[in-house]
């Protein structure tokens, strides 16, 4: 026995959860990327004033849909009885998985309608459901009371910031491939999203001083992970985008140079993937069981 702590005498020490593995991590990563991409393009269209929301130079709705849908498909591998998925909408009042599913249904419907009958109304509906889906995924983890590293109130905010960051990354990749015509606003918006995600991540790592949270998230604070996520996945693209902004404001070049944008986009995608898979697979420890003597 490991002895007493302030909560009582430990009977069972924390063990790693085996229930949700890479399919769940893939669902969260792809779901965040798909919804984030849709929302990012939608917002970038408003702030950037480049009209690509209505003109649709790239089918960003279907791309978002495929990404989110792929995430859901991954879950089929993990669920014990996936053919009963129609029951998923039966607990909408409280279960975040049900809410996530409903948001997905709305998202699919709005994107398909918008694809065939392009209208701002459908785009707005799709954006709203994408936002809700993104937050719902954060609440799914937050509701897992047995996992101290997930059951923290910053989790939905992290899913929001990481979703936008990965959305920015995909947009940068498309811009780099010459599929998006964008102005300076895109770089600035990407920079903001990535910076915010880095701040939220640092807050998450220091969110609680509770022993169970600290030990569960220890793997995420190791030098290699810190370097990989913070330096490579965030600081590096931030630096790149800052250079681009300076270049743009000094009048050297108004558009995003391809290599810079592509490298930034790839680094963010890798960083966000490492964050989410790290949360699900490395820090998913079930809390200890204790008794007061």
């Amino acid at each position, binding site marked *: *026995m490991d002895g007493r702590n302030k909560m009582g*005498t430990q*009977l069972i020490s924390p063990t790693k959860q085996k*229930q949700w593995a890479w399919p769940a991590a893939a669902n969260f990563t792809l779901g965040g990327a798909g919804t984030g991409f849709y929302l990012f393009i939608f917002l970038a269209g408003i702030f950037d004033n480049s009209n690509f929301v209505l003109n649709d130079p790239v089918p960003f709705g279907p791309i978002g849909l495929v990404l989110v849908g792929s995430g859901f498909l991954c879950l089929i591998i993990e669920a014990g009885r996936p053919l009963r998925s129609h029951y998923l909408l039966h607990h909408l009042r409280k279960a975040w*998985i049900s809410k996530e599913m409903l948001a997905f249904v709305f998202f699919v419907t709005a994107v398909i309608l918008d694809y065939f009958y392009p209208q701002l109304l459908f785009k707005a509906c799709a954006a709203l459901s994408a936002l809700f889906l993104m937050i719902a995924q954060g609440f799914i983890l937050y509701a897992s*009371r047995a996992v101290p590293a997930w059951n923290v109130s910053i989790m939905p905010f992290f899913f929001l910031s990481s979703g936008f960051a990965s959305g920015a990354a995909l947009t940068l990749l498309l811009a780099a491939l010459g599929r998006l015509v964008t102005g300076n606003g895109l770089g600035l918006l990407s920079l903001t999203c990535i910076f915010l995600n880095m701040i939220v991540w640092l807050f998450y790592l220091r969110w609680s001083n509770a022993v169970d949270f600290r030990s569960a998230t220890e793997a995420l604070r190791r030098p290699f992970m810190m370097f990989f996520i913070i330096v490579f996945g965030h600081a590096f693209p931030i630096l790149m985008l800052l250079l681009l902004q300076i270049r743009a404001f000094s009048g050297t070049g108004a558009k995003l140079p391809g290599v810079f944008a592509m490298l930034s986009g790839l680094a963010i995608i890798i960083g966000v993937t490492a964050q989410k898979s790290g949360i699900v697979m490395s820090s998913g420890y*079930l809390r200890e069981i204790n*008794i007061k003597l």
Partner: protein
Amino acid sequence: MPHWAMVIDLRKCIGCETCRHVCDHLNDGGWRQVMDMVMKDNQKGQNLSITMGCMHCAVPPCLDVCPTGATEHRIDGIVKIDYRRCIGCGSCILACPYKARKITFDHKVPHQKGFAPEHHGRKNQDRIGVCGKCDFCFSLLDEGMKKGLKPGKDFEATPLCVRYCIADAMYFGDLNDTDSEVSRLIRENKTSCLNEELGTEPSVFYILE
């Protein structure tokens, strides 16, 4: 309305794990685990075996996360699973702070026909790929009560682990009945619950000393 609860007297428990074996064989699941431990911080150096299953919390964290509504909280306090609705998503496993739930993928678990009362047995196939946990043998309770039996007092209407405990360390009964054995034990002894700080209000109480 009764509130079913269990009291486990750890002073009497000898760690034979009969409760676990009975649950394994008759419920096709293995929803009970027994932890052996030495109380190093107890001056007596007491050896303890702690049997654990679902705590049937009054505020069950597993209930709200279930997306299909397969997890139900009965009015008598029992938390049960509708195996026909469960999709095996595992969200309840990650919400339960007592490690009381698991998904069974093993098709080979024997169903001991003839040993279990027929009304309590369920086909194995229903349990594959879905989440399982201790349900206080509610079907035994319900059937017994229909016959006018009193759960906890009458053998036939009592959960199997309590029924077969060879050390007489497990008690079952109605918390709302002040005359029940469990109410008396809780009144007369110092009891503890697991992970009390979480505020889940378990219906399983332990007597340690």
